[in-house]
């Protein structure tokens, strides 16, 4: 039964892959530096690795937002988000899967009269603003540094092309890893509390139940990237602004760094160990990051070449996505409960299930004093 419910998560994963692979490699394909087939394969492999190895951090924050604690509820929340992302992908608009899933969870909260954790919501919504701004700033700085290096070293145009191509593959792989790490929460987060997977060991490596779930989600993302990413790649790679190969590298690197910053538990621990304020581990939008990075470059070049109409459409998509996902979730939950007579919320099952998923992680977070991450909200998912 669980796997039938999981199908909506897989659909969401597929939609995410189709939509967000463009963010990682769209500019590289758009500038004709890499072939779509090549990037889809690289993206698939590294998304899975990122999801399995580093996917736990942002999942935690998303869980605090709402308390989707029944399989049917999880199914419908994921399906609503997936449907929204899929529609937007068909319209060639790079949207945020994070926004879609957050909208859907809030739709569930509203329908079931469950409280929405405002702290988490604020944290997540703030990142929707911080993420593109940070990406824009990063792309400006990186571009200036790269330009300085290229001018100083007087690299031959052909050699630069080769370095660029190799750089795009490496940075794209890093971007895919970060995408998997950061966005797997969107795809599989709602299923963790109801997951039947138990911790296991393979070739001496411990694999938690959550990681097994993340692997399945990662595969779904990879399949989406391989089969249907060309539409949004067209928008990101060509329509928003004409991107040179060097700019493509800068944009992808900025985006990957932003995703990594908001996904890396190690980075957060490092900041804490130096007494710095930790960055929240939040599933941010790779679409917002990439568009922010492109706008950053556009601003650096005096705003020339930016296609404001496309930019407007994308921004509108960002506003519509959470609302649309929320409404779809709300309406479909009504049908699920009243027409199909399915249980869409229950608290007790998830408490026990989630505790089995990753107890070590909870303990570690308590140690570093992340009160917001260990409060009982963990058990309310």
């Amino acid at each position, binding site marked *: 039964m669980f796997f039938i419910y999981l199908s909506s998560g897989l659909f969401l994963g597929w939609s995410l892959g189709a939509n967000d692979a463009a963010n990682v490699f769209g500019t590289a394909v758009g*500038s*004709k*530096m890499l072939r779509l087939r090549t990037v889809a394969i690289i993206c698939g492999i590294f998304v899975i690795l990122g999801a399995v190895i580093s996917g736990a951090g942002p999942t935690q924050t998303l869980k605090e937002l709402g308390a989707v604690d029944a399989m049917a509820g999880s199914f419908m929340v994921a399906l609503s988000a997936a449907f929204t992302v899929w529609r937007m992908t068909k319209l060639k608009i790079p949207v945020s899967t994070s926004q879609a899933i957050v909208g859907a969870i809030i739709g569930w909260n509203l329908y079931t009269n469950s409280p929405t954790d405002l702290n988490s919501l604020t944290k997540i919504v703030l990142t929707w603003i911080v993420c593109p701004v940070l990406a824009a700033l990063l792309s400006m700085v990186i571009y200036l540094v790269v330009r300085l290096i290229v*001018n100083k070293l*007087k*690299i*031959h*145009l*052909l*050699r630069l*092309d*080769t370095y660029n*191509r*190799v750089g795009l593959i490496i940075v794209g792989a890093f971007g895919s890893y970060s995408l998997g790490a950061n966005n797997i929460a969107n795809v599989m987060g709602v299923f963790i509390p109801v997951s039947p997977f138990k911790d296991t060991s393979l070739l001496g490596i411990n694999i938690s139940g959550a990681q097994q779930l993340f692997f399945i989600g990662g595969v779904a993302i990879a399949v989406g990237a391989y089969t249907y990413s060309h539409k949004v790649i067209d928008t990101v790679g060509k329509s928003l602004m004409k991107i*040179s*190969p060097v700019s493509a590298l800068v944009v992808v690197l900025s985006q990957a760094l932003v995703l990594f910053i908001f996904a890396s538990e190690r980075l957060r621990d490092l900041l804490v160990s130096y007494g710095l304020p930790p960055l929240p581990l939040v599933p941010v939008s790779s679409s917002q990051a990439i568009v922010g990075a492109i706008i950053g470059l556009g601003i650096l*070049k005096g705003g*020339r070449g930016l296609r404001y109409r496309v930019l407007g459409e994308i921004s509108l998509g960002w506003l519509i996505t959470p609302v649309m996902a929320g409404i779809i979730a709300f309406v479909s939950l009504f049908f699920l409960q009243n027409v199909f007579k399915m249980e869409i919320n229950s608290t007790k099952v998830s408490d026990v299930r989630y505790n089995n998923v990753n107890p070590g992680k909870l303990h570690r977070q308590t140690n570093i004093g992340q009160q917001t991450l260990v409060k009982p909200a963990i058990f309310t998912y």
Partner: protein
Amino acid sequence: MLFKQSKILINEIDEYLDTVSEGALVFRQCIDEYLNGEKEKFETHRVALSNLEKKADSLRRGIENRLYTHSLMPENRGDVLGILESIDNVIDTAKKTSTQFSIELPEIPEELRREFITLTMHVTQGAESLVLATRAFFRDLGAVKDHLHKVYFYEKEADRAAENLNRSIFKMGCDLCYKYQLRHFVINVDKIADRSEAVADRIAIYTIKRTV
């Protein structure tokens, strides 16, 4: 594989530019020798120039093939090929002009020789500056402008020398057909500078494109 291909291509482009530069120098030697009456040396260098032109053609085709076969520089490929093809016109015009000298063997009056040498000098200096500008386009965009400036300067000087020559030719008391023949040679030599200027214009635009 990718690094190997780009290394081969860099060497081929350098060799191509060396060939064009050498062609310009050989052309100057050809004209000097022709004006000095050293017909045998002139013929030797004329043949050498012809061979250089063939070599440049073959290198250019190789570069074109390699660029497309290995999908190198997708962003700048069209621009690079445009530059290399138009540079080919410079050495091509030099070869044709020297061949015309060899076929028609025009009698250049003593009083025009110095002006002819000046014209040829400006033309070849323009071509050499063009080669430097092209090299800079590949490696050092900041330096392109300096070399292009020289190309434009030598083109103007060549035009001025050609005009002076034409005026001197038509002041001479000889047959109109002879004057026409001499003018024809002046125009052809000067055409090399015009070709260089045309390539320089392309490079200037492509440089702006790359820096924006």
